[in-house]
């Protein structure tokens, strides 16, 4: 990189140049061209290469060589990222019994039963090969009769990621997304949050832009503003289409579900008008148009836009319109799953209870919920009862010796995480744990600016 590239962009033209480089779309994948006739690769097979990191199965194998618990206790981390159907579990058991071998040097798989999967999703096939290639001596202290495939249950999963700001949660979320796309060709939905002025400030997904479809409500106006970091350079507007690969407009939560593509990454904004929400979810959603403090019988306040996610959950989980592996990445999850939820005029508490009751169905329908909070207690207790997997970020202590909701405890006896560095964390279930790490995702391009996305409902004061 020339020395020119080291100094901060200090004009609008330079920032625009950077923006173009950062957001240049990846056009040759199946997700970019869903209607292409011939077979194309999936985004998940490219994104990790773009960030110059190794495939996940290689990481597992290299750690297994050194006896690291991320590989020897796979139910902690591998179970969070790799999703399997019931019939795939059976296949893996058969492969294991057949003595299948994992060949680290070759990207191809040997066993004929994996060939078909390899044709469609080669990295998934290779990872399955690693999972099955266990002669009983990988997991635990050589506990005979317990192998990697035994650590999996079919269906979607849940993960609560918690830690202080600055511990690297955003990078981790991106890593989780690209790894799930790599392993499951998963459809990942990044639930970006809107504040009360319907703005999402300092969008954090910009490095992922070449692979991103932004999903926005159809009848709401969107404005994208670029704020260069250099002092003296004024902010400027761009079109949403300029900074992402695709823009999708949805009329209702169900309409969005119908438009979802397997293997695609979506940054999704909720609809503050709640169009179509009451069709899928029988709770109250008060849009700006119906609120009137003075009229009798009318609601007093606008329902927070985040409630739209309850309706989306209903659309995805209770209607069988899209059954492909789907992960909902919910940042600041405490805003939606509020510990102080009450039976207010928005039926917040009732929605939350219903949301959790659908958790088991969600797993069966291939839906995974990955939540992010600052502290482990920031989510409503009812939700926490159903939680099966946690991730304690570096710099945060795990709840050693404490009883979690649902009579659960963490299996660790020692605090590993408080002294960990950025880029490290510990994942755990009630039975097992593993220390993990992830790379600092860089693509060799840089943007010396922040981006805001803001919405306004036509005909209503903002």
């Amino acid at each position, binding site marked *: 990189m020339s020395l020119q590239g080291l100094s901060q962009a200090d004009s609008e033209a330079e920032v625009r140049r950077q923006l173009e480089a950062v957001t240049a779309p990846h056009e040759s994948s199946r997700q970019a061209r869903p209607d292409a006739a011939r077979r194309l690769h999936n985004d998940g097979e490219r994104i990790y290469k773009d960030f110059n*990191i*190794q495939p996940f199965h290689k*990481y597992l194998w*290299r*750690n297994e060589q*050194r*006896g*690291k*618990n*991320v*590989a020897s*206790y796979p*139910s902690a981390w591998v179970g969070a990222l790799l999703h399997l159907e019931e019939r795939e579990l059976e296949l893996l058991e058969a492969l294991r019994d057949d003595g299948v071998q994992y060949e680290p040097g070759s990207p191809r798989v040997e066993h004929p039963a994996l060939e078909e999967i390899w044709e469609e999703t080669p990295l998934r096939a290779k990872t399955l090969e690693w999972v099955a290639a266990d002669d009983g001596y990988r*997991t*635990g*202290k*050589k*506990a005979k*009769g*317990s192998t990697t495939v*035994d*650590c999996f249950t079919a269906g979607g999963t849940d993960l609560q990621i918690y830690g202080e700001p600055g511990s690297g949660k955003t990078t981790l979320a991106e890593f989780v997304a690209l790894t799930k796309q790599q392993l499951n060709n998963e459809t990942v939905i990044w639930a970006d949050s809107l504040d009360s002025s319907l703005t999402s400030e300092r969008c954090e997904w910009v490095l992922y832009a070449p692979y991103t479809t932004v999903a926005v409500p159809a009848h709401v106006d969107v404005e994208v503003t670029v704020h260069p970091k250099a002092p003296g350079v004024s902010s400027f507007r761009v079109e949403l289409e300029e900074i992402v690969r695709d823009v999708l407009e949805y009329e209702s939560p169900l309409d969005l579900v119908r438009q979802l593509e397997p293997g695609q990454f979506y940054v999704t904004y909720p609809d503050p008008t709640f169009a179509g929400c009451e069709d899928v979810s029988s709770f109250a959603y008060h849009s700006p148009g119906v609120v009137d403090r003075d009229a009798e019988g009318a609601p007093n306040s606008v329902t927070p836009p985040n409630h739209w996610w309850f309706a989306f959950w209903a659309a995805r989980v209770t209607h069988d319109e899209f059954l492909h592996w789907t992960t909902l990445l919910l940042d600041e999850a405490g805003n939606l799953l509020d510990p102080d939820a009450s039976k207010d005029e928005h039926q917040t508490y009732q929605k939350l209870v219903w949301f959790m009751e659908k958790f088991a169905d969600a797993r069966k329908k291939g839906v995974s919920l990955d939540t992010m909070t600052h502290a482990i207690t920031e989510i409503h207790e009812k939700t926490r009862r159903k939680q099966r997997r946690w991730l304690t970020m570096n710099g945060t202590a795990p709840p050693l010796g404490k009883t979690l909701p649902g009579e659960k405890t963490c*299996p660790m*006896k*020692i*605090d*590993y995480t408080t002294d960990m560095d950025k880029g*490290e964390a510990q994942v755990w279930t009630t*039975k*097992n*744990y*593993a*220390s*993990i*790490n*992830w*790379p600092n995702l860089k693509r060799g391009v840089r943007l010396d600016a922040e981006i805001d996305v803001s919405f306004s409902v036509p005909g209503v004061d903002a």
Partner: protein
Amino acid sequence: MTNQERELKGDGGLEELEHGFRWGDVDELLADLPDGSDLRPAIPALTRDQRELIARLVDGFADRRAFLEWAQDAVVLTLGELGGSWVRSRAFTGVDMSVLLTGPERAQWAPDDDPLPPRAAKRVRLGVASLDVLPACVDAHRHLRWSATEYTNQDGDGEGVQEVPDPTSQRHPAMRPALTEIDEKQGWALRSLLDGFRSEDAVLAWFQVLNEAAYAEVPGELATRVLVEEPDTLALLVTANGDPREGRFFRESFAAEYILPAFARAAREVSDRAGEQASDETRTDHSPIRYK
């Protein structure tokens, strides 16, 4: 160390002194221990450290200072059960010092300047170890036994036992980092005292660190006595203007009288509340290799 003859063990193990701890025999005995995993590794980790402590006692000490430095380790490793009054008595009793020390000083301590022959002295040290030190070790274990963490099998879905820390490579006494913390501070405080200070200001600063090292077990008025009320005491602590012969002896006595008892109380208090943490010296940590 001392001016005695040494025999290095053939396989490079701990050195055996001619009239010292017979590591060879001990290792042979311990080699036969059953090989099961230790569910409470803090306990065997402490036993290991205590064994070395006893060995050093049986080997004897070059001079009184070496004994006091050993005593500081001992109060930590016995979790304060080997207390200040025991240390004080030994440090001030002639015949005790003449037996515990192996260097030329021992003659001065002995009654009629006639110390016991080395072999007999060793036998007495062995007696001291078993009469005084071993029971303190046992008492330490009694305090530790139920607060030491048990790393049990995970039953159920058969994913096997998570790693039990290896007791032979733990860094912290009884696997409690808080004990390492006070051990290091106490060791520093003791050495600084025995070396002498360059000025009164240094003495004042030292008292502050001493307070941390002894977890506030040193009585507050000691600093006042030293710095304000007893100029003769202060003169013997500060060596900038010369260190008279009795200075060294005085500082050692000061340590035995006031400092080591406070250290023992501190070790006791800290070990009661300290949290356990595995830290294998060989660092078989779980950190995965860098994700590149």
